[in-house]
């Protein structure tokens, strides 16, 4: 192919002429160092290239080689437990070659070409297969059974299929007509992988976080955004969801955030045991890291790389959760490139196409029927953190995100300042999946679950109104019923919503436990109301010894959750005692 020549370099943006044979979104190799770049704009024979590596030392006159292929990822066994950069270069092998920091032009295959995987065929010679059909499996980790699928656009009759140890590039299956299949396939990251049809997501993604599961659930196949100012706990929530969400695969994209946050993941995840599988969490996790000091153009690609890997596992019929922390850094990368391209800026300098790019990304979530003759169902849940400067969500990235996602977990600086974690504000957050998930909860957990949730929520809303009165005229001027309401909502906030991510027991809370805890804190309100009517004083209710036990209910281990019911019985007994002692006469 024709070799282009650089005429301009501006940070990660390189303009080359003589590129008339190339197409937009082709991957190119820039200079003799073979830096990887991607064409993002073409004018005549001039191509604007975003370079995914450091461009120091490159100047006009250097050559540009076109590969003629779009930016693609390699899909096959070996993805799980690995850590990649934004364009799917494996970081461990890179470090072995080039040291702790990325250096220029190092070329490493995304998937290990030497490692052998044991391939077990599930189809036999003579079977007809279509695109998406599973021809065999590889036990990738103890938890993940990797299904080898027929790539898109391929179909035919199997004339040869082998069992045994193979590398990802060995031929394992041959179709009539000579088409050879390997375990590895390639896919361009900017194109969503296809599916037969989309389904309505109705099953919740259980995260073990009380405020999320009970109040603002996200469904498997849904989209959620976590906007919040600095220090309000976005990353901790993302980590908690990555740890405890009951999806089968987790893709964690660290996009433009601090390097030590990825270190935390690397240090913590292998040690934590997944309650659903009994194996280390790392055995189901793929990490994509483009930390703040890594090349900015690759940041733009990292979330596409992440979602493509997620789609690949979805196609196997798994439920996948992808966490992107943070999409604001991704948008800033878009802005930087857009500025260098001299495009007309939109709001706050972000490119005018910010909203459509964000929508492209979030729309790749969903619960779908995958390709293949067995009609298996897979789901991708996207959870994106947004870091609005100053916590003001009226800025373009938050707004573009909120237009698309259906769950909004608004983090509140005031709450985190009060050490209320997770600092999800219960008054302005919402989940549009609530109606369908309420139904699921009532059918699967407790028929009263959604009613209890609605009751707790309305109490919390009443509280915010009462708090305004309290601020004006003081708490004593409230009626006893209202004072009880304040006590009850304090209990909901502190004993139910607050959850300690760093406590061994409290870090994960099953739905059964959530249900019992919610009932317990509401029981206090119901019983208290009854007692007040019978002449018991609010002060006596506040001093009930059982309230300490209610506050500590969250630390009861999952295997003893029946103790919560005992506390509830104790509460009723103590209140009955108060009524018999101080109740009014029947006269």
């Amino acid at each position: 192919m024709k070799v282009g020549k650089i005429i301009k370099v501006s940070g990660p943006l390189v303009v080359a002429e003589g590129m008339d044979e190339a197409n937009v979104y082709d991957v190119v190799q820039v200079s003799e160092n073979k830096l990887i770049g991607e064409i993002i704009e073409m004018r005549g024979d001039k191509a604007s290239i975003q370079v995914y590596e450091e461009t120091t030392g490159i100047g006009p006159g250097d050559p540009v080689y076109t590969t003629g292929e779009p930016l693609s990822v390699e899909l096959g066994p070996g993805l799980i437990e690995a850590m990649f950069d934004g364009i799917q270069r494996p970081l461990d092998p890179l470090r072995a070659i080039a040291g702790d920091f990325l250096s220029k032009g190092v070329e490493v295959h995304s998937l290990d070409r030497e490692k052998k995987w044991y391939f077990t065929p599930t189809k036999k010679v003579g079977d007809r297969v279509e695109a998406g059909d599973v021809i065999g499996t590889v036990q990738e980790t103890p938890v993940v059974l990797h299904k080898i699928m027929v790539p898109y656009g391929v179909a035919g009759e199997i004339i040869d299929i082998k069992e045994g140890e193979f590398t990802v590039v060995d031929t394992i299956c041959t179709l009539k007509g000579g088409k050879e299949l390997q375990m590895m396939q390639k896919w361009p990251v900017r194109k969503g992988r296809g599916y037969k049809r989309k389904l309505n997501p109705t099953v919740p993604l259980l995260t073990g976080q009380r405020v999320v599961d009970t109040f603002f659930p996200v469904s498997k196949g849904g989209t959620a955004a976590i906007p919040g100012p600095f220090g309000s706990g976005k990353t901790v929530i993302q980590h908690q969801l990555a740890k405890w969400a009951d999806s089968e695969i987790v893709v964690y994209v660290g996009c433009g955030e601090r390097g030590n946050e990825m270190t935390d993941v690397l240090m913590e995840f292998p040690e934590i045991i997944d309650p659903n599988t009994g194996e280390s969490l790392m055995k189901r996790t793929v990490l994509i890291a483009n930390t703040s000091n890594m090349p900015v153009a690759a940041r733009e690609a990292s979330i596409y790389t992440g979602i493509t890997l997620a789609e690949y596992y979805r196609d196997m019929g798994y439920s996948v959760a992808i966490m992107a922390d943070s999409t604001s850094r991704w948008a800033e990368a878009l802005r930087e490139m857009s500025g260098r391209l001299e495009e007309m800026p939109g709001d706050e300098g972000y490119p005018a196409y910010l909203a459509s790019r964000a929508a492209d990304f979030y729309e790749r979530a969903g619960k779908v029927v995958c390709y293949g003759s067995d009609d298996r169902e897979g789901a991708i849940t996207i959870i994106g953190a947004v870091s609005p400067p100053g916590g003001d969500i009226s800025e373009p990235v938050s707004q573009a995100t909120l237009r698309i996602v259906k769950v909004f977990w608004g983090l509140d600086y005031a709450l985190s300042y009060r050490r209320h974690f997770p600092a999800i504000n219960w008054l302005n957050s919402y989940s549009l999946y609530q109606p369908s998930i309420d139904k699921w909860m009532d059918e699967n957990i407790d028929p009263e679950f959604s009613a209890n949730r609605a009751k707790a929520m309305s109490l919390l809303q009443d509280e915010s109104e009462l708090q305004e009165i309290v601020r004006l005229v003081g708490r004593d001027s409230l009626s006893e019923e209202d004072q009880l309401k304040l006590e009850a909502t304090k209990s909901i906030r502190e004993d139910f919503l607050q959850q300690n991510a760093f406590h061994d027991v409290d870090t994960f809370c099953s739905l059964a436990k959530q249900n019992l805890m919610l009932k317990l804190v509401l029981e206090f309100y119901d019983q208290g109301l009854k007692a007040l009517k019978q002449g018991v004083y609010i002060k006596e209710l506040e001093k009930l010894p059982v309230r300490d036990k209610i506050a500590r209910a969250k630390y009861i281990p999952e295997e003893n959750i029946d103790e919560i019911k005992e506390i509830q019985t104790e509460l009723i007994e103590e209140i009955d005692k108060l009524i018999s002692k101080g109740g009014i006469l029947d006269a």
Partner: protein
Amino acid sequence: MICMFKIAVVGDKDSILAFKALGVDVFTVCDSEEARRTVDTIARNNYGIIFITEQIASLIPDTIERYDNEIIPAVILIPSNQGTLNIGMKRINENVEKAVGSNIL
């Protein structure tokens, strides 16, 4: 319709029995528990003023405090046949101070 409130007196029998002569409802109590139940009950039964002897009131401060912020009933402390404990007068002084800003009594 004009709303008619009743008047009650709570205390030990010797101190308050004479109030009966004025047509006031008399409730005799002996201990704090009984006093509390009585006051709470009559407070809900359309009594506008509850006189209570200081001796009994000193046993149930929580109950007295409870009606401080309510317009009806007015709980008023009176001395008993054993003399005064001065808490009734003190409360009046406090209320006057709250109302006018200085103790004018």
